[in-house]
């Protein structure tokens, strides 16, 4: 292929602008999702084949600016400067044009070729907002395309524009700010002329006035005398404006953004209060908001679990006969038994993924795409703050109820390392769907539904207490919640499918291989006849302290693979699924409590390991094992009084 048929573009924009939707639409199945080198931030790349052109698309993380505030921002700006993509597509939420333009201005400062994709124009029109496309184009000196990514409209226009403009080499103009700031920038640019750095001089000058740490130290290495001048200019700016010079610059940007918005946006007043507005008011109401949340989340969990139980039973009856088939085909040798345990692990994964995790995610992403998840963060923020994290952490908890693996992965949305870690630790304590299978299958079925629900309340209270303790132990300032509140909009099937698949993929590719390998390993230990020895070693804990049958020692080891195996294997070992024959009510509750907390499953451990290092992962495991054993023993002793 000739080189001029190859184009590379990057998507940049603020959160909630619909960047991922554009990316998914353009690249479809030709996607590759990895990590930025050495970072726990997702790197999404894909390819589009269009009219004989090969277009490489990179989705930059959603950010708000290019100052070194977060890792995402540094990654994005370095990528644009170092890799020099043919075009930067700035995806903009048209309903929030003014705020989005602040970021656009920063892109223009980088002096890279950009194309504006004014996304969600349909929603903007519905709100009575119309945009003068021509005028916006003239004011920004950059091409503007109107898109509705959720319906795929306007997206090929972007690519057409990219192909057209590539030949032309249009001249981009950097945005012009107020006079005294421009004078400062001009003076610094002059001093920076010919400096050996990959950035445009004007941009370096702006960043110096913004007191960007990285840029200051870079310039210090090359031309330290410029910093002296910067200091002098900053001080004079600060004297005139009464604010820090970094704020003066930011101020200029928002002034310009608001001027451009005023000149290009027409809002038709007198529209009626829409249903969405009313919904927005109710769902964030002081009292009603919580009622609605309990109703929605409660409905979601009940719906998912009753569907899951039904579906899982169906699958059970299908898979039941497979073991006999396998024995017929493969025989009953040692190798065949190991082979079967690999199949059995896979089937058990299917049985948890399809009936529980899949519908859970579909529900969750419907809520997310609709705009409700941000409301939950808002409602839960003050409670979350008591645990030293802010409202967004609540989202990881909710995901954790489905499966801890994506729950832990989602902690990356937290801004600081400290919060990310606290959230991840707490997520590992959230009862996932596998644990729920135990709680409902054992306690719910034989002791009473109220007891099972009580265990959930107990778990939530414990998570709260542990959160409070860990936020005290891990020193550091809690980060405050800053979150744009999206408008409600109709969920898009395509977006939901993509997001569900993304989350499920994490479960499949991270969890499945580990579960299958360790399933075979433990089966090998079992076949070697070492299990009785292990259970007798563990019996001081299981029998003496917890009052459980000795066999549970083995079950708890298997449970590290997947918690619901505890129940599955209990049935296999005892030769009955009527657990009330073999376990008393106290024993069931004690076993459920241990299962809930004793250790994150192997897949979750692997995520902790990858994101936080093996030391922290091991510390979490050991602490949780000790905690669960002590706790369950105490619970048993209290229950002895009740039953």
């Amino acid at each position, binding site marked *: 292929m000739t080189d001029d048929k190859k184009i590379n573009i990057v998507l940049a924009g603020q959160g909630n602008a619909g960047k991922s939707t554009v990316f998914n639409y353009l690249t479809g199945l030709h996607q590759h999702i990895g990590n930025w080198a050495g970072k726990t931030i997702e790197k999404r790349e894909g390819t589009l084949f269009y009219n004989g052109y090969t277009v490489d698309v990179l989705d930059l993380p959603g950010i708000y*600016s290019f*100052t070194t505030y977060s890792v995402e921002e540094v990654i994005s700006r370095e990528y644009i400067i170092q890799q020099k993509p043919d075009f930067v597509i700035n995806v903009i939420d048209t*309903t929030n044009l003014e705020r989005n333009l602040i*970021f656009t201005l920063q892109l223009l400062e980088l002096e890279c070729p950009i194309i504006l994709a004014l996304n969600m124009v349909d929603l903007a029109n519905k709100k009575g907002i119309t945009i003068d496309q021509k005028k916006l184009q003239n004011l920004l000196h950059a091409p503007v395309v109107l898109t509705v990514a959720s319906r795929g409209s306007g997206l090929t226009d972007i690519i057409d524009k990219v192909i057209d403009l590539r030949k032309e080499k249009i001249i981009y103009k950097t945005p012009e700010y107020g006079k005294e700031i421009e004078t400062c920038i001009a003076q610094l640019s002059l001093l920076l002329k010919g400096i050996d750095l990959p950035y445009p001089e004007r941009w370096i000058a702006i960043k110096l006035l913004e007191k960007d740490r990285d840029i200051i130290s870079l310039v210090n290495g090359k031309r330290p005398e410029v910093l002296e001048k910067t200091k002098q200019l900053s001080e004079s700016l600060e004297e005139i404006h009464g604010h820090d010079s970094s704020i003066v610059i930011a*101020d200029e940007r*928002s002034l310009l953004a608001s001027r451009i918005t005023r000149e290009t946006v027409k809002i038709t007043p007198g529209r009626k209060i829409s249903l969405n507005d009313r919904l927005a008011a109710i769902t964030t109401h*002081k009292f009603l908001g919580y009622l609605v949340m309990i109703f929605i989340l409660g409905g979601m969990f009940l719906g998912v679990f009753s569907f899951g139980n039904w579906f899982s039973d169906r699958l059970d009856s299908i898979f039941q006969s497979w073991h006999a088939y396998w024995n017929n085909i493969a025989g009953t040798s040692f190798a065949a038994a190991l082979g079967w345990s690999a199949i059995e692990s896979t089937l058990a994964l299917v049985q948890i993924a399809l009936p529980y995790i899949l519908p859970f995610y579909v529900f969750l992403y419907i809520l997310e795409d609709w705009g409700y998840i941000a409301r939950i963060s808002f409602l839960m923020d*003050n409670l979350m703050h008591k645990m030293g994290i802010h409202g967004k952490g609540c989202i990881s908890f909710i995901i954790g109820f489905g499966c801890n693996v994506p729950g832990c992965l989602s902690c990356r949305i937290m801004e600081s390392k400290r919060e990310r870690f606290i959230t991840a630790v707490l997520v590992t304590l959230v009862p996932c769907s596998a644990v729920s299978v135990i709680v409902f299958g054992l306690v719910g079925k034989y002791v009473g539904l109220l007891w099972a629900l009580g265990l959930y309340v107990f778990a939530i209270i414990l998570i709260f207490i542990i959160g409070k303790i860990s936020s005290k132990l891990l020193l550091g300032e809690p980060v405050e919640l*800053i979150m744009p509140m999206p408008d409600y909009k109709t969920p898009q099937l395509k977006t939901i499918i993509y997001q569900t698949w993304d989350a499920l993929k994490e479960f499949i590719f991270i969890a499945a291989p580990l579960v299958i390998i360790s399933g075979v390993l433990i089966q090998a230990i079992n076949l070697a006849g070492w299990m009785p020895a292990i259970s007798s070693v563990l019996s001081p804990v299981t029998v003496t302290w917890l009052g459980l049958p000795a066999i549970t020692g083995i079950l708890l080891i298997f449970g590290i693979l997947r918690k619901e195996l505890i129940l599955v294997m209990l049935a296999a070992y005892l030769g009955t699924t009527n657990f009330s024959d073999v376990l008393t009510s106290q024993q069931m509750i004690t076993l459920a409590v241990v299962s809930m907390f004793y250790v994150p499953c192997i897949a979750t451990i692997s995520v902790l390991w990858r994101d936080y290092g093996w030391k922290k992962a091991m510390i979490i495991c050991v602490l949780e094992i000790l905690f669960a054993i002590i706790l369950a023993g105490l619970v048993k002793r209290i229950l002895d009084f009740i039953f």
Partner: protein
Amino acid sequence: MSLTDIKDGQTGIIVSVLGGKALTKRLADLGLTPGTEITVLGRMLFSGPIQIEVCGSRLVLGKGLASKITVELK
């Protein structure tokens, strides 16, 4: 007065933002700079977060953060 002191539905103009540089910068990137109009849409109980409208978009701020923003009633 601080942003937390204005009633729901009232509009004010930002006078200043106290706090570290990273924080003020981040708020500025969202359009929260001195001189900007800001409307309080609602807040949660027990010193919960506050919902505001600024530059035509809705934003949620933690209470601690909101208390660092000084405003003047319009």
